[in-house]
């Protein structure tokens, strides 16, 4: 069974912005201060264009591996698929670190044991072994949850925001903008997340344009969040990691209603679990496509192996989270946009509209 185009649009509009709410806002605030919207404004159209390219390639109706195999043979296809899988695993590292820090920070009063995050990989391994149609159906549930969480947090915090802090526009200068754009790169690989889904949804006329528009709509929500974030925290936004869990604290109604903002926070945290698992799921899918179809247990085994490896890596660098983030957003910033753009353009070249026979 295939995903529907609606589910793809839900993913682009409602799930992708949620993955950028944890560490990206303070990183942008540190780089561009009040101009933190500008780097995102620059990233969004680029990423939307790449989404357009990947969705356009979906007209072919084949999976990425099939497209590659048709042009460069089975071994070549396996090599490229493996490279793209590695890229997705590389891209997954920052969200995983974010998730781990988020879990340790917002779910516990005191620093918990390291192992509390380990069950995430059990879920991820399970998710990776499920049929892709299940992922599409997840988007049907995650999209309203994401909108509920975002709307709630924005509603509770917008009253406390001083949007004047964003002015004057351009105060950080070109240097601030470039620095912000560079740091934001680690979070913009959404087009690449669609690669493993190629051939698993039917292309309907106009899907590429709708997909790009949906992505931009999601981007608009992200921009609203960033603006409110900077409006609430101003100059101290730089140190406000996990801001989405803190912004709504200041809402006056909470003293009467109690901490109902946790409903929104947990909704977003729930969506983030799936967003963090998506690159791993994509990598497993790409690798599984290269395996022979006969062994049903092979994808499950692969899923366990990949997730175990990610778990081991994450805990191997457990005490170096800050340095890893700095590395990904600093010296190695170009890897994600370069590989993301190259893969999107590659599939656009490979994908041809299938002629009706």
């Amino acid at each position, binding site marked *: 069974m295939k995903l*529907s185009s*609606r*589910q793809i649009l839900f993913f682009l509009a409602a799930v992708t912005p949620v993955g950028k709410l944890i560490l990206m806002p303070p990183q942008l605030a540190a780089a561009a201060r009040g101009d933190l919207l500008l780097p995102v404004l620059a990233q969004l159209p680029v990423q939307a264009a790449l989404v357009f390219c990947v969705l356009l390639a979906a007209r072919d109706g084949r999976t990425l591996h099939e497209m590659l195999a048709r042009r460069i043979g089975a071994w070549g296809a396996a090599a490229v698929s493996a490279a793209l899988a590695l890229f997705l695993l590389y891209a997954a590292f920052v969200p995983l670190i974010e998730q781990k820090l988020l*879990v340790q920070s917002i*779910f*516990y*009063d005191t620093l*918990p044991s390291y192992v*509390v*995050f380990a*069950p*995430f990989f*059990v*879920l991820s391994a*399970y*998710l990776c072994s*499920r*049929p892709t*149609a*299940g992922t*599409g*159906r*997840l988007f*049907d*549930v995650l999209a309203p949850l994401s909108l509920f969480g975002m709307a709630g947090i924005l509603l509770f915090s917008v009253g406390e925001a001083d949007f004047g802090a964003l002015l004057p526009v351009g105060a950080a200068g070109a240097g601030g903008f470039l620095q912000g754009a560079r740091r934001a790169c680690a979070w913009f690989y959404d087009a690449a997340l669609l690669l493993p889904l190629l051939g698993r949804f039917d292309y309907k006329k106009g899907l590429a344009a709708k997909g790009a528009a949906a992505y931009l709509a999601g981007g608009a929500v992200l921009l609203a969040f960033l603006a409110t974030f900077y409006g609430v925290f101003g100059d101290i936004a730089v140190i406000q990691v996990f801001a989405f869990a803190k912004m709504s604290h200041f809402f006056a109604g909470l003293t009467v209603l*109690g*901490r109902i903002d*946790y409903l929104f926070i*947990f909704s977003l*945290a*729930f969506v983030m*679990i*799936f967003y963090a698992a998506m690159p791993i799921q994509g990598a497993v899918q790409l690798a599984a496509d290269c395996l022979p179809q006969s062994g049903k247990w092979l994808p499950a085994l692969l899923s366990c192996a990949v997730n175990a490896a990610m778990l081991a890596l994450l805990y191997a660098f457990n005490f170096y989270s800050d340095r890893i983030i700095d590395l990904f957003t600093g010296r190695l910033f170009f890897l994600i946009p370069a590989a993301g753009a190259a893969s999107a353009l590659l599939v656009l070249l490979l994908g041809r509209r299938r002629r009706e026979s």
Partner: protein
Amino acid sequence: MEQQLLSGDLAADRAALKALLPAEDILFRDLYDAAGTPFVCIFADVLTDKDLLAEQVIAPLQRAVTQQKMERVLAALRAPELRTRQSLAALADEVLAGNPVLLWEGGTDAAVTGQRKAPARAVTEPPSDIAIKGPREGFLEDMKSNAALVRKRLKTGELRMDALTVGRRSQTAVTVCYLAGICREQTVRAVKQKLSAIDIDAVPDASYLVRFLSDRPYSLVKQVGTTEKPDIFCAKLAEGRLGILTDGSPIALTLPYLLVEDFQSAEDYFMPPARATFLRLLRLFALIVAIYLPAFYVSAQIFKLQLLPVKLLLTIAGSIRDIPLSPSLEMLLVLLVLEVLNEASIRMPKYVGMALSVVGALVLGETAVSAGFVSTPAIIIVAFSGIGLYAVPNLIEETSIVRLAMLLAAGSVGTYGILLLTAFGLVYLVSTENFGVPLAAPFSPLVRRDLRDALVKYNLHSLKTRPASLNGPNKRRMK
């Protein structure tokens, strides 16, 4: 295996049937017609209406001259339900089902006369599905009565009732009911195939069939709908579902099942849509609170006190100060006591059950709190949780286990454990299908049209189409 047929030699056929049916309650009555032709009437003593048998079979036969001809025999009988059988095994099955069988000298066919009378109670309101407004009739253990209750409500030739037999020894009659042209043919075929493939000794109740009809038989999640009310059964048939009546069971099965069905009640259709919507949302809210409240309470106490408002936190802190048990163990203990009380009160005789409730609620609860074993908030939370689960009674078997699992996750990993377990559940639910219909529809996959009668209930005038999630051939139910 080749079936042994009647030979026409009455003595030999009688002996062969006696060998197949040696039980003492199977009676062999010798008869003669007016011309002296010998007959044997075979019937199950406890399952046959003997007055009717005498009136419709024996008396007319004794007055007739049949000349050993089947047409004359059948013409002489006054039984409204008449059929013929040739195989000895089929005749034995008919007798065991309560239908008398008539053999005669020279006859290679035997008449099955149908004076079945199974012991049955009167039609009453089912205890698990009480309606304040709406029909109060409930299904019985007798399948013919159940079929009559269905036929009474759906007076259409499209209503098909296909009979099957399941169970090697119980030979339980099972009827697959559906509306031809409305129910998906593939579903009917698949259900019949699954039922025919069942190879089991006996089927004492419809719940035995549920495991064989589920695509994931070991799953905790319910995959087949159940009802004890013919009005609900018929409404589901009219929506495009298929129903299964099982002889000996007052529970009818409906397929394909959607999870949202259990949040709906028959009464929702007899009240204003706004009230029905409110009640459905209330059921969902009660269920969510019932499952998550004990877990979040434990998680808040152990890992994240900020989850609780300050004033409530102070109250709770005062209550739990001297409790010797850890929060998770305390909650687990109180939940287990509730489950034990619940189980015991269902099984106990009515009057003892009432006394037990008093002992459980007052003596155990009150004394445990005053003795300092458990805290008052724990009792309140478990009590609310216990009540909340019963807001959706058809899911109680699943939700009580999920509640326990949530509690264990909360006690070991905290709130993140609760979220992860919920995520597991969600992934499992959305990928579960039965007979090609996703369990979580119309929410996942989203079927917009069906949302009009899911948790929100639209006015009847807006419900012009049957549920699209069921993918039936006939979409429109109202013009």
